[in-house]
């Protein structure tokens, strides 16, 4: 694997805007501009722009593209129509998950898959392995920038830059066209914050122009650049999975709460075994919890029941800027996974009370 740190197209722009840059998934990425908490609140209450250009994009084309996607992904991609996106995952053959991803149907014979930056090479090789009908695949990750404009004021800001009526683009739908003077832009009503807004895919050549236009258009609404730190706290408040933390090569999609994107209407990698697991029932489940005692759960901490028996492990944790308390996600043995079950988190030398909570947490 190439260990040299990659840079995104607007690397220098972020540095000029005061970003602290850190290595993430092989890319030098803005983690914070001013304060994680301020940035988090900006997205929850106003509007912020994330540069998440490290994400990977593959184009699959031709009459057999859908067959290949159906073969490797767990959700039923035959159910989406042109200009619709779908959350899905790539199950492996051993019961785990290669990656989670978004499938965009651009046309009947053209799809875009959006994958995690850390898995670009792994996913590419995985899909290629099943590509027995030679579906033309193109990895456009290095040519594309991706800006997530998120928050309750996101639509108002972006509307200034396009004639398309953005309120007509429903959740998980997208539009493909000219935006802020740039051609071939995808405006997708998706996101990883739960705050609403759009994700904008643009070629690197036009990335600066589009980014600058959004910053200028959002001045009135107080738009701010947001780092990966706040992206993580925002997604945790919603209980969204992060690959590498909450799901990985060993976690079952059913145990991860991804049953809703696991459709047995077709065959896919390991579908027989996953179906058997569904029928037999799982023994643990990924759930969210809120701290009752003062303390912050972190990845790897043990989860216990009130009797002090180990019943699970924390996979993600933070201080919720919205709630002002510790929150987390973790796998918990049944029946302790039920909402409102009192649990205990072993935080270093102490044991602190928490409660299993339904999603979202805010």
């Amino acid at each position: 694997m190439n260990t040299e740190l990659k840079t995104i197209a607007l690397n220098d722009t972020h540095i000029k805007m005061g970003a602290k840059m850190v290595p993430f998934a092989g890319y030098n990425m803005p983690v914070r501009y001013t304060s994680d908490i301020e940035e988090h609140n900006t997205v929850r209450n106003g509007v912020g722009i994330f540069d998440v250009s490290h994400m990977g994009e593959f184009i699959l084309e031709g009459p057999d593209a859908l067959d290949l996607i159906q073969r490797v992904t767990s959700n039923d991609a035959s159910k989406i129509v042109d200009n619709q996106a779908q959350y899905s995952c790539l199950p492996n053959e051993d019961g785990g998950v290669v990656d989670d991803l978004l499938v965009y149907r651009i046309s009947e014979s053209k799809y875009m898959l959006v994958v995690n930056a850390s898995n670009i090479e792994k996913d590419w090789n995985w899909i290629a392995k099943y590509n027995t009908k030679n579906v033309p695949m193109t990895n456009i990750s290095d040519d594309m920038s991706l800006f997530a404009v998120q928050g309750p004021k996101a639509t108002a800001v972006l509307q200034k830059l396009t004639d398309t009526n953005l309120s007509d683009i429903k959740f998980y739908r997208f539009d493909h066209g000219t935006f802020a003077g740039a051609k071939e832009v995808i405006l997708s009503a998706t996101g990883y914050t739960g705050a609403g807004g759009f994700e904008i895919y643009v070629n690197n050549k036009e990335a600066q122009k589009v980014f600058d236009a959004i910053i200028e258009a959002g001045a009135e609404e107080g738009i701010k650049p947001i780092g990966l730190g706040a992206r993580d706290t925002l997604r945790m408040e919603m209980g969204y999975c992060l690959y590498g933390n909450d799901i990985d090569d060993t976690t079952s999609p059913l145990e991860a709460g991804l049953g809703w994107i696991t459709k047995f209407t077709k065959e896919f990698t390991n579908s027989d075994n996953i179906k058997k697991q569904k029928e037999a029932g799982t023994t643990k489940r990924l759930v969210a919890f809120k701290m009752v005692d003062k303390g912050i759960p972190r990845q790897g901490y043990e989860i216990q029941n009130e009797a002090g028996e180990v019943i699970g492990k924390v996979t993600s944790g933070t201080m919720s800027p919205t709630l002002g308390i510790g929150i987390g996600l973790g796998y918990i043995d049944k029946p302790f996974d039920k909402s409102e079950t009192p649990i205990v988190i072993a935080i270093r030398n102490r044991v602190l009370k928490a409660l299993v909570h339904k999603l979202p947490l805010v």
Partner: protein
Amino acid sequence: MNIPETLKYTKDHEWIKVEGTTVTIGITEFAQKELGDIVYVEIETEGEELASGDVFGTVEAVKTVSDLFMPLSGTVDEINEKLEGEPETVNSDPYGDGWMIKMTLSDASQLEGLLSAADYKDIIGE
């Protein structure tokens, strides 16, 4: 970056203010910036006699937990109780109201091993 000349420093990004045998300890401007928003400071070693290098508490930012190390050997006399309710003071006033502990040195000669403001500036590349 603010690195007061009157203080001593460690490579663990702590500052030390010496007043006779009583010293006050906190973390530097650089440290609070690197950590980001500090949301929790836990120090439960009041009254304990600790050796240089021992952990006297932890500081948690949104994303990270960091141990706080004793820069010197001695007894923890006082902890900054204000930080329990207002941990963000460490971000806003790291050299003032954001102090962490006051301690009595076991041996004053230890002070010779600390860094000057100029030495510390070199370490953080200022």
